């Protein structure tokens, strides 16, 4: 672990300025991921700028009827929030499916979005990894890759994004609010994370010095009928093999609107827009749910160890939508 300086900024602008001045500095919030990676030598910042107290740690109402989640809201607080639980249950369920109670107490909303992958080769500085050391090669493509991507991967990187929370936010059409050297910008969460392409070292579209300050959930009626399903090898404290966040509005047996996002399948949470399009206006039944899943998974490219993710994703997309149509 490389020595580093630690500073606490006075405000958001000060934190952004501190990073702009120091090209190898990083923001520190809960530290549940970054500090581990520093111990492993995977992350080697010269300076940490503590932003934990700079952004809101509350969930507030927005004028449009949506909710604004401060970047410093701990995962455990967000999961327990009454408005989240009633209006966006998939998000609460996703948070509670992640990590452990202790970690959720410390981990923040902003930090959770910026979790790095769990790829075992990325986490081990003794093995080649394009994400850690561009150009060194990808050890996972021909290595142990049960937990790796089936969608949107590249020849340079097959890592997956580990967050549960982010998957639900993708399904709920969330927006991310970011402060940077050029002021504030707000954009759909889908534009936050990127696919690896030929720059797998870049997880997100954020520029150096940009700080996530909030996540907005727009008003979305069907979100009240939403659900998160996580498949994992043990009953708790395990990353998803595959997960699905879905919201469904069925009227007279017909899908009026639907949102589907997948976790554990790609370099970013995977919004299943093809499946959504296929379902809108169609009868809400098992055959159609399976068919929609198949359309989404048509492009899936399994690796040596992860072909099982295709039937698994298909099964839980259909099962979650069936549950949502029955529970309605």
């Amino acid at each position, binding site marked *: *672990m*490389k*020595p580093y300086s630690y500073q606490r900024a006075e405000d958001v602008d000060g934190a952004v300025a501190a990073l702009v001045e120091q090209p190898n500095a990083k923001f520190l919030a809960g530290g549940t991921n970054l500090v581990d990676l520093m111990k492993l030598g995977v992350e080697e910042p010269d300076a940490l700028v503590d932003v934990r107290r700079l952004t809101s740690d509350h969930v507030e109402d927005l004028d449009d009827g949506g909710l604004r989640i401060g970047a410093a809201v701990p995962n455990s607080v967000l999961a327990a929030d009454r408005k989240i639980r009633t209006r966006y249950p998939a998000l609460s369920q996703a948070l509670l499916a992640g990590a452990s109670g202790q970690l959720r107490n410390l981990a923040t909303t902003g930090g959770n979005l910026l979790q790095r992958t769990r790829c*075992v080769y990325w986490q081990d500085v*003794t093995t080649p990894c394009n994400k850690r050391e561009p150009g060194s090669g990808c*050890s996972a493509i021909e290595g142990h890759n049960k937990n790796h991507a089936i969608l949107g991967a590249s020849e340079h990187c097959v890592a997956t994004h580990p967050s549960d929370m982010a998957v639900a936010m993708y399904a709920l059409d969330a927006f991310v609010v970011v402060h940077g050297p050029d002021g504030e910008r707000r954009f759909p969460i889908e534009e936050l994370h990127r696919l690896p392409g030929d720059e797998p070292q870049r997880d997100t579209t954020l520029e150096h010095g940009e700080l996530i300050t909030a996540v907005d959930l727009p008003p979305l009626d069907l979100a009240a009928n939403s659900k998160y399903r996580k498949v994992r090898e*043990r009953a708790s404290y395990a990353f998803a093999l595959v997960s699905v966040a879905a919201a469904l509005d069925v009227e007279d047996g017909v899908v009026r609107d639907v949102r589907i996002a997948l976790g554990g399948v790609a370099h970013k949470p995977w919004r299943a827009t093809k499946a959504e399009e296929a379902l809108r206006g169609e009868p809400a039944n098992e055959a159609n749910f399976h068919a929609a899943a198949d359309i989404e998974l048509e492009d899936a490219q399994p690796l040596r160890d992860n072909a099982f993710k295709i039937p698994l994703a298909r099964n839980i997309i259909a099962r979650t939508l069936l549950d949502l149509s029955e529970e309605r």
Partner: protein
Amino acid sequence: MSTTTRTTGGAIGASLDRIDGPQKVTGTAPYAYEHHVDNPLYLFPIRSEIARGRVTGIDASAAEALPGMVTVITHENAPQLADTSDRELAILQSDEVAFRGQYIGAVIAETFEVARHAAGLVEVSYDEEPHEAELRENDSDLYTPEQLNAGFPTDTEEGDVDEAFSSAAVTLDERYTTPMEHNNPMEPHTTIALWETGNLTLYESTQGAHPVQRTVAQVFGLDRNRVRVVAPYVGGGFGSKGLPHANTILAALAARMIEGRPVKFALTRQQMFTGVGYRTPTIQRIQLGADEEGHLTAIDHDVIEQTSKIKEFAEQTAVATRSLYATQSRRTTHRLAALDVPVPSWMRAPGEAPGMYALEAAMDEMAIACNLDPIEFRIRNEPEIDAETGLPYSSRNLVACLREGAKRFGWKDRDPSPRARQEGRWLVGTGVASSTYPVFRLPGSRATIRYEGDGRYAVEIGAADIGTGAWTALIQISADAIGVSIEDINLRIGDTTFPFASVAGGSSGITVWGSAIFEAARVFRERHGENPSEGDEVQARTPDNPETENYAMHAFGAYFVEARVDVDTCEVRVPRMAGVFAVGRIINAKTARSQFIGGMTMGLSMALHEESLVDGRFGHVVNHDFAEYHIPTNADVGTMDISWIDEDDPYVNPMGSKGIGEIGIVGSAAAVANAVHHATGVRVRDLPITPDKLLR
């Protein structure tokens, strides 16, 4: 603490709280890293990043320039060891690299942080040679070891197996595999090493202070009395702390270079996946033959497993198969592949744990093939004597365990058809398996008993409590042996200052240490009577047990498991397990129950979770942390119904106890696997049973 009986003679069997519980939960029981030492230094290892070859250069200049650095030790400057015959322990003696992750140096610094940072700055260059780090079934270099771990013969054969198999009415021929697994006790391997005027003190996390003393003395060429090992509290071992590993030698080597200052070395979790032992992966072929009534006529169990090129460890995987069931003919074999890998070693029930998984899964398949209930099939093949020795059993209550367990679990109305029960989205199934473990009797343990006045007796023995409850159980044994109440015992263990104690291994600790205490108490009364004077003392050793010539001694048990498998995702959950054991007399009902729960949980873990993934290109375990190497969480462990048969075995030892540390893992993985098959109709023979293997 609980109130305890003051009447003497009833301490053995009492459900006593751990006497060290309050210290442990208040953090005042010193584990190896926590002993107070003055002015300590900290060690961080430098480990090989190739699997085979030579170190051609080490540039430590950047590391040495750091403030707080003390020294970098490598093969270029390390003290020479006196005995390098054990190549696992002969570290930093040459430029040779025998596996990836092997210690090739260490940084010693004033703080842990500086040591770790500096270790990352040391540049090592290598001359790399081709390596082989993966076990392959068709490896042409498989060889036959001279003998197996614990001295068991490599191969056995009785009767004409081939003839019996070809004429059998029902046959089975299947291949089962178990993966590499790592012991991973909660407390990592830890040493504080201090040299003063030629004497070495080690505060050590170990399953045996005296075995460490003997090995370290030999490796460094010292008189034993110059090495003191202190280990009063140990945070688990599961076999990985049974034999000293290279980490202890590294700490002692480093400390030798800085005479007078203690050097602290605790492994990180990632480092626990190289160099402190592991369970070999196994590839097991089992062939069974039976007649029309379901009597076994042939059993063949052939094992392929791995060892390290630098030191042989031959797991005794098929030994339980040699005696558990009656048959007309039987063959067992073991073949090894020597690889460029760390040395495998003991992991809870080495041999029995992987071997009984395969045998008991095969027995389940064979019961189905014979159209018999799996309990009835086992009872039908109950032997009269121990086939391996030809001796009668001192006690054998496997059938009683199976019957009692069936009653407790509610087995009676079980529909044997697979994939026939569904509750909601869960497929539900039940499984059963047998368990057995030998009564090992390690020689040489000694106990001192001294009268300290006021009715109090000191009992001293260098035994290790690795979290099993030995502190408490040995006080109970001492009280009954001496004939006083437990409050009158001053027990002293975990230090080579006390008389020799054998390793806490092979489930033998309490039985052999307790036997030494009983013998010392007998001699004490013989010499000093019922009214001794203060300072009267005797020392005695575990006596030989002549009954071992007359009886085969084994513990037995049976498991019953309910498994639920999600029909959409194939996630496996186990809401309840039952274990019934026949293990002689129970010393402490409370700590015994914990041992059984722990063993069965580890069996559950073996069935569903544990797997060290070796990447053959690099030669190391890539999932080397608890996020990726799964063990059960509390949420994975359902109801554990633990019980035991009242078993009076007058032959095993004065306590009548058989040892309980390992039996709980033996066969429990098979019971889970059998339940998963009953639930799903899918027979996964390669552990662990994860959703990807069940999804169709």
